[in-house]
Structure formats: C-alpha cells, structure tokens
C-alpha cells in the first residue's frame, strides 16, 4: 500500500492531537472513551497516545482481549482433555500461559500432556490428518475476526472427511457486552472506539445500536497512531456537538455490511448462546455454540472430570475489563503480578490491559498527580 508511512507520521499525529485538545476544551466536562480490542490496547500503550490527550479525555480499555475474558473453567477443561490418552489439544499461543485453576496449558505440556501451539486452525487440521489415530481438539476462542476461520476449518474437515478433528467452543461476540456496558448506569462510558478487525467481518452496521438506541457516539478505527487519534477526535467532536453516530474511519478495510461470506460460513456451524465473560459474568447470546447437527465436532461433549474452578485471589482483572479501574489501582499490579509471574489473564496476554500498562505506561502512571 503506497504512503502507508503516513499512518505513523509524527506531524499528522501532532496535528490530530492539537485538534483533539481544541475540541475537548469546548466539552466543559471530562469524558470517558472506551476501546474494546486488545490490539488497540496494545497500540495505544506502545505509541504513548494517552500522553497526547488533554485532561478532559480519558481513554479506558474494555473487554477486548478474548484470552482475558475466557473463563477459568474453559482452561481447566482444555487441560483435562489434554491429559486424556490419545488426545492432542491445539491452541493459539496466547492461551498457553493463562493461569487455570491449578496450572496452565504450558505447565500441562511440560508435564507431558498433548498440547501444541498452532498459528491457524488449519494447522490443527493438518495435525489431525497426520495423526489419524489421535483425537485432535482445537481450542476455539476469539471474537468475530477469528470465529469464521474456525468455521472454515470445520467446513474443510467435513468436506475432506477428517473425522478426528473437534473444537472446544469458547468464541464470543463483541456487540452484546458493549450493549451491557453502555446500558449499565454504573459504568462511565461516553464514547466507543470500535474494533477494526471484528468490524471487517460484522460490518460497522452491527454497532449501529450504540448510536441509535443508546445515544452513544462510536467510531470504527484502525490500529496505527493516526487511526486511533482520528477516532478520538471524531468521538470528542460528536460529544461536543451533541451528536451520536457510528462513524467508519477504517473504510480502507471495513464495509458497512462487513464480510457476508465469512458470516455465512460462521452461521453454518455456530449459533448464538449465552456465555460467561471473565470479569463481566454471564451475558445473553454473547457466545457461539456449535449447532446440534455438529455434535460430533464438539469437544465439550467429551466426558472428562474437570476440577471446581478457582479464581486467583486479590486479582482485579474484572474491574479492569469493565474499565472501572486502571491497572495500577490493583494491589497486585507490578508487585505479585508481572508478565513473568502473571496472576490474572490481563497480565498474561500481550494484549491484556495490565501487560500493556506494565510494559509501556508505568512511568506515566507514576508521574500523574
């Protein structure tokens, strides 16, 4: 793509920051803007964008990291499956170090359990092809960006006749928790930066309820510093003018209607189901379950003893995921809980809010009054 460097251009970033300050000075109050995408969390922290924002604009992270919102009993079940003879659990690397009730997938693997890290669900299919005598279970986590790729792998397993491939359903969808947070009077939320790559699949239209039903300004944004600041400027201007719209500022890859083909493949295998979000609790129709006709692909139907789930004590990941505290407000942050010794999921994943703050924002946090 020609001219891509402009998306990182410091002069453009400085000009956007100046416009945000000018627009914010007309707000007459402090506003809270939430992003709901781990890639945004990381991009904002890595580029130090909070330091460019005026005091009236507070940028918080919501439940945008699929690994961080995966409940502990899902990990416990994955470990129990990996310990079964003849079973190979394949997973995206992000899940390996997340603490479960008694260990982690990484520790299970070290103890000899069948756990393999893959880059794509297709790699898990290749494992199933190569080891026909084993039962291969893919850990199916991720939002709308990822879920269609898993559905496509399921389609391939059906069409090419790979009987030993299954998934452990754990996918979640972004609009339901956004609706819950934006409707919760206990959550301060004036505007939303929408996840760019989720929107590639869902389309910007999937979030129109925010503006139309709840009166909350929203903007679909990309992941470079200029992309994010354009989103912040858009939201501050909408708030200043008393408007609420869903603006698509990532038109170079996001269409209003999204990717209908991806959603068709997804709908063939999955249907909405209630799901539990770590930190947020149960949210209606916020997960994806396999349709009953694909029961033979559903690893949650495999009988296995799973221990009672144990949440880490003192961990405030839940408050962080609701955007109600910043990581340094948790007493474990940067003392008992670090990327080397993570207590909660938000510190494990590189996209977790606590990990992003630990790496990039600790100095800024200390400098604050």
């Amino acid at each position, binding site marked *: 793509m020609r001219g891509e460097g402009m998306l990182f251009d410091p002069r453009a970033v400085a000009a956007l920051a100046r416009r945000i300050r000018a627009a914010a000075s007309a707000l007459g109050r402090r506003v809270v803007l939430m992003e709901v995408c781990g*890639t945004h969390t990381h991009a904002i922290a890595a580029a130090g964008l909070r330091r460019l924002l005026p005091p009236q604009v507070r940028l918080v992270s919501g439940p945008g990291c699929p690994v961080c919102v995966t409940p502990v009993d899902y990990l416990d079940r994955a470990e129990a499956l990996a310990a079964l003879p003849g079973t190979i659990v394949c997973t995206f690397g992000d899940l390996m170090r997340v603490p479960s009730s008694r260990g982690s997938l990484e520790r299970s693997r070290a103890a000899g359990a069948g756990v393999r890290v893959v880059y794509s669900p297709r790699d898990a299919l290749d494992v199933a092809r190569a080891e026909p005598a084993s039962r291969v279970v893919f850990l199916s986590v991720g939002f709308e960006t990822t879920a269609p790729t898993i559905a496509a792998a399921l389609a391939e397993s059906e069409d090419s006749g790979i009987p030993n491939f299954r998934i452990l359903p754990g996918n979640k969808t972004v609009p339901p928790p956004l609706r819950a947070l934006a409707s919760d009077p206990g959550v301060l939320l004036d505007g939303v930066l929408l996840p760019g790559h989720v929107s590639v699949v869902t389309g910007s239209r999937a979030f129109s309820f925010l503006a139309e039903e709840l009166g909350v300004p929203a903007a679909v944004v990309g992941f470079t510093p200029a992309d994010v600041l354009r989103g912040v400027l858009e939201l501050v201007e909408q708030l200043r003018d008393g408007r609420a719209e869903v603006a698509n500022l990532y038109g170079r890859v996001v269409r209003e209607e999204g990717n209908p083909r991806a959603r068709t493949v997804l709908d063939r295998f999955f249907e909405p189901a209630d799901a539990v979000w770590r930190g947020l609790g149960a949210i209606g129709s916020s997960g994806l379950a396999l349709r009953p006709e694909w029961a033979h692909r559903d690893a949650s139907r495999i009988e296995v003893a799973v221990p009672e789930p144990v949440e880490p004590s003192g961990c405030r990941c839940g408050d962080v995921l609701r955007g109600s505290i910043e990581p340094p407000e948790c007493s474990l942050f940067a003392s008992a809980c670090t990327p080397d010794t993570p207590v909660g999921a938000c510190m494990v994943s590189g996209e977790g809010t606590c990990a992003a703050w630990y790496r990039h924002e600790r100095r800024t946090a200390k400098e604050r009054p």
Partner: protein
Amino acid sequence: MCLAVPMELVARRELEGEVERNGVRRKVSLALLPEAEIGQHLLIHAGYAIGAVDAEEARETIALLEELARASEEGR
C-alpha cells in the same frame, strides 16, 4: 488476538492463495474471500484472508493525513 496484516495476493489456485509482504510469502486460504483478485491487498488473520483493502479509501486516508502533516508544519 485480532491482529491482521495486509498482504498482496500474488498467486492463487481455487481457494488456496499465496500472499506477500516485504518479501515474506505465505500460503493462505481464500475460503472466506473467494472473490479475491491477484494484486489486491488482503487482510490476513490466522491463515485466512478475511477482507480486502479498498485502494481508493486507503488513498483518501493517506491524502487526509498528508494534509494534516502539512498543516502541522505550518503551525495550523
């Protein structure tokens, strides 16, 4: 986890594509984007193309940022 990288489609055979960025080549599935065309930049996530870059929209964004950069130099 929703990280996705734009890469150029340089070859395809039915739903198997080959994409390239900065000299790095990768095989990807086009099952979620069967209409992809050679020369298009595709958004790649977990081994699948999930979307295509709209070249016209990309040019508009870049032009807007160039205008902002000029304004910044002029102190506007």
